[in-house]
């Protein structure tokens, strides 16, 4: 329980903060929370179960599109959430049953393929506005700041839900099963773990939270097109955040999201053309220097000896 106290303090801070922030910073913080939630979601399948789901943004896109399509047909925003989640979860199960039989890089590439294929389908789907994308009804509010605050809290609720889920996962039979699958799938089978079922379920949960975020995103930005919401770079960012903060931990994904989003804002806005290079360098440095992520540095303490040892172990 003790280790959840500091995060709880941060949560209280996040709740009372919005009135004191400018619109600019509120938007940045909203972006951080949005990515933190998606990273928590990818952490379930890629962190705990060890399946590198590089195509996870596909659920983000599906969530965004279901909400956009339904709202264009007169549904209220909240009514679109359940259909959006159900669609994404069904999609993850149907795709997951065959694709989750692949392991390691093969799974990563297959899931990426699913994402790109889905994007192409949506690109040609009339009801989804094809390549032109869809416009959503604008959220009305007393002031722009009130609207920003509304979305800020929607994302914050999604984040809290995903964190609660992960805390539950840590102390639950399901979580133990996933961690066993990550290390050794044959070993897990011999331990009585129904691995195909568990993997599929893990991806379904991951899809659920990612789709929820996609839905809120669509309403927030109020215009979506396939190139944006199925962008593989979003998957890559989720992955980097997860590794940066600490995979298969509860709070690692949040730390990763904070660090990377702040870097984005502070550095990339000035050097747009090199952001691919920066992303690549961060991935390499993380994997070599702190393979367990920043959270491990905070909880385990920093020591030069560990750093040198990490370099020795992880150099190619």
């Amino acid at each position, binding site marked *: 329980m003790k280790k959840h106290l500091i995060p709880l303090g941060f949560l209280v801070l996040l709740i009372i903060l919005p009135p004191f922030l400018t619109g600019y910073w509120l938007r940045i913080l909203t972006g951080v929370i949005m990515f933190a939630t998606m990273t928590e979601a990818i952490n379930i399948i890629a962190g705990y179960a060890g399946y590198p789901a590089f195509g996870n943004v596909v659920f983000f896109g599906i969530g965004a599109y279901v909400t956009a399509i339904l709202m264009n047909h007169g549904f209220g925003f909240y009514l679109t959430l359940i259909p959006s989640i159900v669609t994404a979860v069904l999609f993850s199960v149907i795709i997951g049953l065959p694709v989750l039989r692949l392991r390691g890089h093969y799974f990563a590439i297959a899931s990426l393929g699913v994402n790109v294929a889905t994007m192409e389908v949506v690109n040609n789907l009339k009801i989804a506005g094809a390549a032109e994308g869809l416009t959503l009804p604008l959220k009305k509010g007393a002031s722009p700041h009130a609207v920003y605050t509304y979305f800020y809290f929607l994302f914050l609720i999604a984040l809290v839900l995903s964190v609660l889920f992960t805390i539950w996962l840590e*102390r639950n*039979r399901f979580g133990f*099963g996933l961690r066993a699958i990550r*290390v*050794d799938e*044959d070993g897990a*089978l011999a*331990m009585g773990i129904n691995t195909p079922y568990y993997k599929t379920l893990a991806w379904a949960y991951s899809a659920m939270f990612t789709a929820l975020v996609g839905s809120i995103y669509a309403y927030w930005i109020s215009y979506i097109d396939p190139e944006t919401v199925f962008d593989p770079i979003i998957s890559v960012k989720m992955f980097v955040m997860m590794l940066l903060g600490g995979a298969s931990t509860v709070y690692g994904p949040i730390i990763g999201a904070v660090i990377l989003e702040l870097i984005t804002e502070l550095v990339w806005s000035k050097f747009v053309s090199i952001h691919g290079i920066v992303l690549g360098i961060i991935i390499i440095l993380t994997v070599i220097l702190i393979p367990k992520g920043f959270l491990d540095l905070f909880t385990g303490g920093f020591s030069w000896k560990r750093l040198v040892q990490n370099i020795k172990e992880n150099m190619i």
Partner: protein
Amino acid sequence: MSEVILKGRGVTKKFGGLVAVNSVDFDVYEGEIFGIIGPNGAGKTTLMNLIVGLLPLSDGEIYFRNLKISGKKAFYIARLGIARTFQIVKPFKGMTVLENVMVGAFFGHGNYSKFNEAKERAEEIVELVGLAEKKDELVDHLNLAQLKRIELARALALEPEVLLLDEVMAGLNPAEMEKIMNLVRDINKKGVTVIMIEHIMKAVMGLSNRIMVMHFGTKIAEGTPEEIAQNEEVIKAYLGERYSKRRKSA
């Protein structure tokens, strides 16, 4: 003797043209320690993989009591109460000793679905195999003898009726071996049927009630340790044709 708990009929496994296990029949009785020996490549580990469902059979049938288990999924067989250890240890790295054993308790025959139940059960078993003071350490830092104990502990946490041990003694020094042998004896006394594959003759001969000998995928002998030690076929398989002839003429 007591009733048959595990029964194989015409158990066969082919890898392409290679017949790794060739129409083997076996009966394991409840409560015994059943040894399986044979030279390298005799098909012992393959047979074990067939029993626990990690490999599909090419032909034949395996029964647990009266239930046909060949063709069933590995996790289902594990939950029925047939547990195994791996010759090449497969600890769940990144997890502590206790957590490793908890996996077994969560998913095994005992079906401890609550966190605290599984933890309590795992603590008992960790104590039993003598790893109590290491329970909160990551398995990544343990040595081979300790990892073998974890294999055993995890399998025990499944609360099996039949425990299959794949070379648990390999790579251990005599003192460690002695401890594990005592442990296996204790486990067996509690009513768990044990099937052990072993290269180390002292261990098999000392522990087993009955022994089956395999050679090139076929069963060449079966009997008590004394019978096996005298069996011509077995001596031929292990020590070669010439030695066998010399022994006869002497």
